[in-house]
């Protein structure tokens, strides 16, 4: 942490301070929640927006990139609420249970709240106001980090979903959590998902946020022997900061994948702790960038118990002046023996002006472990292109085939096969549009 005393604030930092001062009286939750907000804001205010000298944010300098902080969004009107309807369409074949958050507000009448044994779903703001026990037990406690984007979220968190899957419950339909932004304003959404022992659930987060500035966070607690498949899909026309905080119990399978396209400035950060032994996780991402888009996937994985197996696999395709960042830190705590972690990141640069930054880190405090990482960044292989063209495939088609293959490989690594096809379709749509 920097010790510098900051007296000069940027316009965005000042606006955020004003937003908090003005909103704090009306934000949901009193007592310990209000205390939590205050502490988080003090921490954020002391740090300010992270900048390039903050190691964790080195390639995504928010102080330079965020010129203005927009005011908080107003509650959505009826037409705004209705926009969320179509967003889950690519996953309609999976018949998901759709939950909707529009302009930062959980919209019950656009959400499928039909009862299902072992499944409890509700609004975060209501839970905060009510002093819900699950929320009190977990919010702000799943993973300790002094990250400034998260601190800002904690200070200003408004609404989101609270999902509790009781022990042994197999939730058959995936839950699609739709986040739609329709205003030229800012939203701070916070969700909590608690999956008890032996339960399984698939969670598809879909963010389509237009020009809305988004700071979203999801806390996830998975109990022993659970299985959680998490997919996050993002299309964000303005600043989009996303934090996943996860605590994973013993013998749990946890898969998380972030697909980002058509997005101006995105930071997807995941903090995952394998708290119990013998967990299995696949964590990955695919980012498709063009123009001056900037997508940062940052991952901190802590293997805190024995026998954890994790696979991290991130890919990006960059056109024009796109910039993709991948930072992956794997921490193996003392005693977390037989950890097996492999991290790969590959960037495909389709333009000389594109940039891929890659920062893998291994911090290993146990001796009997297998950890490794690899990274590549480069253009399409001319030799491969020649091979395809020598078979009669014209250059453009050959390129498209190779890009699609590059993308397809990481999508194929998704452990849950039903999610692959809609993802591949979305990726192909982007590839076609690039022409």
């Amino acid at each position, binding site marked *: 942490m920097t010790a510098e005393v900051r007296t000069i604030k940027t316009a965005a930092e000042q606006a955020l301070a004003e937003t908090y001062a003005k909103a704090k009286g009306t934000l949901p939750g009193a007592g310990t929640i209000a205390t939590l907000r205050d502490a988080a804001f003090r921490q954020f205010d002391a740090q300010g927006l992270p900048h390039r000298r903050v190691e964790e944010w080195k390639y995504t300098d928010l102080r330079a990139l965020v010129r203005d902080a927009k005011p908080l969004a107003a509650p959505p009107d009826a037409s705004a609420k209705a926009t969320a309807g179509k967003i889950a369409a690519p996953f309609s074949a999976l018949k998901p249970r759709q939950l909707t958050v529009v302009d930062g507000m959980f919209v019950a009448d656009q959400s499928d709240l039909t009862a299902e044994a072992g499944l409890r779903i509700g609004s975060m703001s209501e839970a905060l106001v009510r002093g819900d026990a699950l929320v009190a037990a977990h919010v702000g406690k799943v993973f300790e980090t002094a990250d400034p984007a998260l601190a800002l979220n904690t200070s200003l968190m408004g609404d989101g979903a609270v999902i509790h899957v009781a022990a042994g419950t197999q939730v058959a339909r995936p839950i699609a959590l739709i986040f739609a932004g329709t205003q030229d304003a800012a939203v701070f959404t916070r969700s909590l998902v608690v999956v008890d022992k032996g339960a399984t659930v698939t969670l598809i987060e879909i963010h389509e946020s237009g020009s809305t500035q988004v700071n979203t966070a999801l806390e996830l607690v998975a109990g022993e022997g659970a299985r959680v498949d998490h997919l996050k899909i993002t299309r964000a026309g303005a600043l989009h900061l996303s934090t996943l905080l996860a605590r994973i119990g013993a013998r749990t399978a946890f898969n998380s994948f972030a697909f980002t396209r058509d997005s101006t400035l995105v930071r997807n950060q995941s903090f995952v702790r394998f708290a119990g032994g013998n967990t299995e996780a696949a964590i990955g991402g695919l980012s498709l960038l063009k123009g001056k888009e900037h997508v940062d996937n940052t991952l901190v994985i802590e293997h805190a118990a024995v026998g954890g197996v994790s696979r991290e696999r991130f890919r990006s395709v960059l056109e024009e002046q796109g910039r993709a960042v991948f930072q992956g830190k794997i921490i193996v705590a003392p005693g977390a023996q037989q950890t097996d972690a492999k991290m790969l990141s590959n960037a495909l640069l389709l333009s000389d002006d594109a940039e891929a930054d890659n920062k893998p880190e291994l911090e290993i405090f146990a001796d009997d472990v297998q950890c490794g990482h690899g990274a590549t960044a480069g253009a399409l292989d*001319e*030799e*491969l292109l*020649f*091979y*395809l*063209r*020598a*078979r*009669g*495939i*014209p*250059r453009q*088609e*050959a390129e498209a*085939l*190779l890009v*699609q*293959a*590059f*993308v*397809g*490989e990481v999508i*194929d690594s998704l452990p849950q096969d039903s999610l692959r096809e809609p993802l591949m379709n979305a990726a192909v749509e982007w590839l076609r549009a690039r022409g």
Partner: protein
Amino acid sequence: MPLLEVKNLHVEIADKTILRGLDLTIEKGQVAAIMGPNGSGKSTLAHVLAGKANYIVTQGEVLFNGENILAMEPDQRAAKGLFLAFQYPMEIPGVATMTFLRTAVNAQRKARGEAELSTPEFMKRVREAAGQLGINQEMLRRAVNVGFSGGEKKRNEILQMAMLQPKLAVLDETDSGLDIDALKVAAEGVNRLRSPERSFVVITHYQRLLNYIVPDVVHVMSKGRVVRTGGKELALELEAKGYAQYQDEAA
């Protein structure tokens, strides 16, 4: 008119002259072997014919069916019926062999103004050609050449040739790395395609392959030129005497 005429071809790569006035004529329906020591420029010739970018032609011409092909893109040449079986076939992660074959077949048909093959027709042709080469369905589903043995990669080249039905197939050391059984399978694949309408250039370092693919004519390359041409007995002579005389002669 010969199918292929290479006249006084000079080629450089990375400021190094590799082909130095190469002349070669291939008649329609002919099977020609090109033999020669390592480094004599056999693969360079194959790549230049196929249109690889980083080779610079400084002199000479290449006529295919009377048409100068040197200004054409590799895919245009392929659509006109030129095929190169690579000495080192590439692995293409993420592209299923079946998809690759289908894309190639249809791209060539499109370039020639022919209709795409229907799925059943395509499948029928692949199954037949693959079956003859001992390539199973599982291999066809796998990414092109990824995890294939050396022999499987070479058989996959022959499969591509069988699907594309070229007018001229240049086989660059299709025999290298093959045991005798694999070599026979590959050679049978080639022999099945022999016809008065199709020519082959069989590049090889060893005479062995020519026991199975019997050539009409044998050319010997040395230092970037064809230095001798003879009948199939020339291959046996080379086998017996080695390439020493050609290395000396051109040195």
